[in-house]
């Protein structure tokens, strides 16, 4: 509700007050018969054509819910008159008083304040200002100057976000001379709120997009009023083939929070950038000894599950279409490639066995219990307490690194020996993928990992060794994948310190 600056007395007329701001000075008008004077300022009463004043209308259409008010508009005419004594000395030849007349001020876009007082007012402070318009256009006849006004609206011409990556004008903010071509013209994102959800188990992420600003360095930019660094070590790369993000981290990362934005570099000296990937299983085996599982164990919660009864097994398979060039080099060690089922027994203790099968090796038929698994993870024993177990793949049976194509072919199976088992979810976890190689990756490091795997009694050895020779082509050094797409980051959009009032 407006605070009226003057209380009307009985029989006092409402008086319209108009103030046109010419930037360096004002013109004052009123709709009185003659001029009125408020605090020494004369408001001319003869210039405004009384019949020309339109209704000042503004509506907010809330029939569809929350919204913004419409931009109001107003029309007013000023008469051709000789006695006006304001900044424009006469309105007799008004077409010569404003541009386009030579050296005269432009009237278009000038601000028009509209207010009211009641008859008897003497003070400027008694004006209650109601509207602020600006002059959108004007025309003139032989007798009057017609002003077309619309409500002053800063929003109309403002595009947000304001800054785009460019190499034309050094403005200290969005000027990047070595950005990749695809970055030029892209807006620097502005974030509001929090973007730092990272639920690896369910491949559930809420992270914010960034823009690459350098062709060769791994530099990305985003902005907010202040960007607050939630996690300085990670960026995220989207893998379309798996519909998920791979978490990237570099040993020599650097990050800067500043009012001009937030800049992160994953690699400051060319060292390795690593990736962590969590892939949800999306397919299963059904029929025979295999319990057909349902989507309930592949969704993003722990409230639904699939039941595996005694003596049966379940088999899970990835359905991603990733290839090795999407990822990089998958590590050797058994604890870096891990099958992670979350499960529990319905009651008591249930024992079982974890195995993996590759349908392309030795003609294994995973649908027959008698067939030999190509690898054993481990036996397990589980109770009614829900757990997320880890069963490492280690190096593959051909003494090579795993490729993602290999992993996508494999069935991960749980054989249930007794009791009933509930499988709540499962995923394949691959950590420390060597994503971006500059100089530091060597195969020798990997062989050290290989040795360690064989020293670890927790991982069955025999089966893997026996089928090494039967496996396919050698998996050697991969085509390392440069970070060439948009990255995603964990950040929060903060206020400036003491930014208001």
């Amino acid at each position, binding site marked *: *509700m*407006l605070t*009226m600056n003057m209380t*009307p007395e009985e029989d006092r*007329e*409402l008086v319209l007050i108009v103030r046109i701001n010419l930037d360096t000075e004002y013109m004052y008008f009123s*709709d009185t018969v003659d001029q009125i004077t408020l605090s020494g300022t004369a408001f001319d009463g003869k210039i405004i054509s009384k*019949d020309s004043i339109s*209704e*000042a209308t*503004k*509506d907010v259409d*809330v*029939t569809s*819910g*929350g*919204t*913004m*008010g419409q931009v109001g508009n107003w029309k007013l005419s000023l008469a051709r008159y000789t006695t006006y004594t304001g900044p424009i000395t006469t309105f007799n030849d008004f077409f010569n008083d404003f541009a386009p007349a030579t050296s005269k001020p432009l009237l278009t876009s000038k601000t028009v*304040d509209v207010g*009211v007082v009641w008859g008897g007012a003497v003070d400027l402070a008694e004006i209650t*200002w*109601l509207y*602020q318009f600006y002059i959108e256009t004007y025309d003139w006849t032989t007798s009057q100057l017609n002003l077309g006004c619309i409500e002053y609206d*800063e*929003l109309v011409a*403002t595009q*947000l*976000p*304001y800054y785009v990556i460019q190499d034309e004008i050094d*403005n*200290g*903010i969005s000027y990047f001379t070595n950005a990749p071509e695809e970055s030029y013209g892209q*807006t620097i994102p*502005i*974030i*509001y*709120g*929090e*973007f730092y959800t990272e639920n690896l188990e369910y491949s*559930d*992420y*809420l*992270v914010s*997009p960034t823009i690459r600003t350098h062709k060769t360095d791994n530099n990305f930019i*985003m902005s907010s*009023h*202040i960007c607050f660094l939630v996690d300085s070590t990670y960026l995220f790369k*989207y893998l379309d083939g798996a519909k998920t*993000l791979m978490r990237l981290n570099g040993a020599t990362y650097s990050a800067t929070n500043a*009012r001009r934005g937030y800049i992160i570099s994953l690699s400051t000296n060319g060292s390795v950038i690593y990736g962590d990937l969590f892939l949800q299983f999306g397919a299963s085996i059904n029929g025979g000894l295999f319990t057909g599982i349902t989507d309930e164990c592949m969704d993003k919660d722990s409230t639904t599950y699939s039941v595996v009864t005694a003596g049966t097994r379940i088999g899970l398979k990835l359905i991603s279409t990733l290839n090795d060039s999407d990822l990089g080099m998958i590590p050797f060690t058994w604890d870096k490639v891990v099958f992670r089922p979350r499960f529990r027994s319905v009651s008591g203790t249930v024992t079982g066995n974890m195995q993996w099968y590759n349908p392309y090796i030795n003609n294994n038929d995973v649908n027959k219990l008698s067939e030999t698994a190509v690898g054993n993870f481990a036996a397990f024993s589980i109770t009614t307490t829900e757990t997320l177990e880890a069963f490492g793949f280690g190096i593959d049976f051909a003494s090579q690194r795993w490729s993602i194509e290999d992993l996508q072919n494999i069935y991960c199976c749980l054989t249930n020996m007794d009791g009933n088992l509930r499988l709540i979810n499962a995923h394949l976890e691959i950590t420390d993928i060597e994503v971006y190689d500059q100089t530091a990756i060597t195969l020798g490091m990997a062989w050290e990992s290989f040795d360690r795997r064989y020293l670890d009694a927790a991982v069955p050895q025999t089966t893997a060794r026996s089928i090494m020779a039967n496996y396919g082509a050698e998996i050697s050094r991969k085509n390392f994948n440069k970070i060439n797409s948009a990255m995603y980051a964990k950040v*929060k*959009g903060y*206020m*400036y*310190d*003491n*930014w*208001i*009032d």
Partner: protein
Amino acid sequence: MARSNTYNADGLIENPSGVIESIIRDEILTERDLKIDSVVSDVIEFATLSPLNSAVNDFYNGAYLVNVTKSERYEVTDYVGLTKKLTLSSIPTGWAAGNFCYLKNVQANIDTDSFDVVGAGIVDSGTTTSTSAGKLVDSIQNFSTTVKVGMIVKNTTDTTYSYVKTVDSNTQLTLETDIIISGETYQIYGKRYSWKLARSLTSQQDSRSILEQVCFESHCILVKSYNKYKLVDLGDGNTVGTFTTPMKEGGKPLVTASLTPLSQIFTDYSLNYGYDYAKKIYTKKAFVNKNATSDSYLNTLKTNCSYAEVNYKVKNKWEYNSDWIQDDTTALYFLEQIVNWFYQQRIVVNWMGSPKTHLQYEHGDRVLINYDFMIPTGKNNTASFMIIGKSLDISKKKVRFTLI
């Protein structure tokens, strides 16, 4: 100093009112791409390299000058239009000609009270110290500093709610309804307290469409009153006056009433939210219809859906993709507001009044209408109507309102 109610220094920009205010102050009311001509003590000149737009003295007072090169910011305390020199609140160190700068918060006219009523967190809480009908009395409070008219009052002992009608003093509030007696506990907070938005603006849009979307997804309206932006929540709230006497023409009152169209009645609501910027999909869904809801919080709204279907004999689906809502609780709050807004027809009143008694009312104000010649029983002088349209006819000395 920082705003004390809605915003804390360095706080997250996530409440709807905070998002809107930040966009207006920091992104819209700006003058960008400036380069310093000279620095003399606390006076910074922008006359040649990138002249400031305004030649009006004091035009930039209260704005903030951000030095991008130095990553520092100072408030402008004075401006000389002729020389285009800004005086800063302190003498900056190391600022020099050629530094890149921009101005924000230029001519920032924000109706801060209205933003606080929408977005404030818990501004006060305690235990009442005496009983007075329709009042909340707490002898150890500082209500005059912290509380704004329109904020929600929750009686946390009885779990009842009302609104602040007036702030009588530091220790007493008048409430819209009588809900609290001595010895009961209470909290006072904004209408969209605990709503959280999150979005990354990744492509250019005009700022009006961005703000319209935030308003829609927080069920608020943003209107300009003279030169100030004012934010008002849709829905129930405190009333600021009563319309009693319309103008007449030919002896007939200039009042009409109608109902919102049936096309705006919905029976089945779905909200897609949780936009994933990488997958480019909405990952979450909240829904409510007469048979089911996605969350027990929405269960009471099933009867509203059923009411609409039975009484209006329509089956309309409302579905919306939210770009700003990531938070599950906010999604439920928003859907609750939407269902309550759309499950029944609303009365739309056109009212013509005299300026003397009506000019002070403006968009977003809620009023009672006490005029049983036109307003139905049960609504007359009871239901709150929000002003959504106002038209001033100066020559005929009339003010026309549209209320819903």
